[in-house]
C-alpha cells in the first residue's frame, strides 16, 4: 500500500473519519469529508504513529484551503 492509500484509509471510516474509503478524493478538503479541528488532530496522531513521522507545525491547523492532495504532499516531506 502506498503512502497516499494509507493516508486516505486513515481519513476514512477505517481510520478516524466518517466516510467510506471510496468517497475520499484528492480535491476535497478536511471539512468536505466531515472533519472538524478535534477529529483532524486525531488524524494527525494516527498519521504520526502509523507512518512514524513528526508532522510539521505548519500542518497542525485544519484549513479549508488545503486539499487532501496537499496533505499527501506535506506528509511525503515530513521527517521521520
Amino acid at each position, binding site marked *: 500500500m502506498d503512502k497516499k492509500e494509507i493516508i486516505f484509509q486513515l481519513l476514512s471510516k477505517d481510520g*478516524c473519519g466518517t466516510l467510506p474509503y471510496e468517497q475520499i478524493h484528492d480535491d476535497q478538503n478536511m471539512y468536505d469529508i466531515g472533519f*472538524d*479541528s*478535534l*477529529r483532524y*488532530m*486525531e488524524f*494527525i*496522531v*494516527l498519521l*504520526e*504513529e502509523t507512518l512514524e513521522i513528526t508532522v510539521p*507545525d*505548519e500542518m*497542525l*491547523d485544519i484549513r479549508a484551503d488545503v486539499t487532501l492532495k496537499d496533505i499527501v504532499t506535506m506528509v511525503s516531506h515530513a521527517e521521520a
Partner: protein
Amino acid sequence: MQKPSVDIVIPIYNQSLSLQLTLEGFTRQTASMDNVNIIVVDDGSQEDLSHIIQSFQSTLPLQYFALPRSGRAVARNTGIEKGTGEMLIFCDGDRIPCETFIEEHVTAQTKAQDKNQSLLVVGQVDEMYVSHLEQNMDKARQNAINQRHRRTPQYCKLIYNLFDQHGNTTSPIAWLSTLTGNLSCARALWENIGGFDPLFREWGFEHFEFGYRAFLEHTSFVYCKQAINTHIAHHRNNDMYIQHIKQSHAYFYEKHATTSIAKLLDFMLGTLSLEQYEELAAQEVKHAIPMLNPNQQSFVRIQNF
C-alpha cells in the same frame, strides 16, 4: 525526610465526562493517598457534577466546593484556601494523570524542600483527541492507561526547550512554562506570591502572571517530564482564544509594564520567535541566562493549550 501533605486542586467548569476520567486517574496512583486531599472546585458549571463526585467519595479523599462562575484564578485560590496541605498540585479537570503523577511531583518538591529552595515544578502535558467523548469513554480511558494515541501540544513542546536534559533552566522567560493544568509548588510559595490574581476572569494568562511574580522573586523552575497528565482536547475556536489572549495581555501589561510582558503578545500570536523573545527578555532580566540557540526560530502556531 517525611513526605509533605498534598492538596490536589482541580478547578472544573462543566466537562463532567472529562472529570470522571481525571478522577479515575487519581484512583490508579502509585503514591499512597494517606497524606493527599483532592479538592474539586466547580466554577459555576451548568452541568450537574454531583453524581460524579458522589461516585468517587468512597475511593478518593475528595472534597467538593461549588462557586458561582468566577474564573479559574478564583477557583484555584478557593481550592487552596479550603485545604491545608503543605504542597499544592494543580491538575485541571480534563487532565488524566499518569500512575506516577503524584509521586513524581512529590519527589521533585521534596528534593526542593530539602535544599530549602523555592520551586515550581512543571509537569509534562500531553494531549489526546477523541471525537464524541460520550460514546468513546473507554477509548479515552485505554489511551490514558496505555499511554498511546497522544502527542505533546505544540506550545508545550516549544516551552520544554527552555529546560536542559535534567529539567533545569536559567532562562529569562522560564515563567512561560507556568501551565497550571499540570504544576506543583509549596503552599508557602503560593502564599508569599499572593495567589492567583482574581481579576483575570477570562481564559488565559492568570497562570503566566502567577509564574512571572514567582520568577521575579527568584523562584526556580524545574521541568519534570515523568509527571505526565493527558489533556482531553475539546473543540476550539481559535478566534475566541486570540481575543481572550489580547484582553488578558492588556491586564497583564497594566500590572507589569516591562519589555518582557510588552512583547509577550507578539510571541503568543506567533509573530515573535521563542528565541527572539528570550534574547529580548535577557536584556532586561539580569539574573537569568538564555537557554536557546538564537540562530533557530520557533513560533507559537496554536494558541489553545
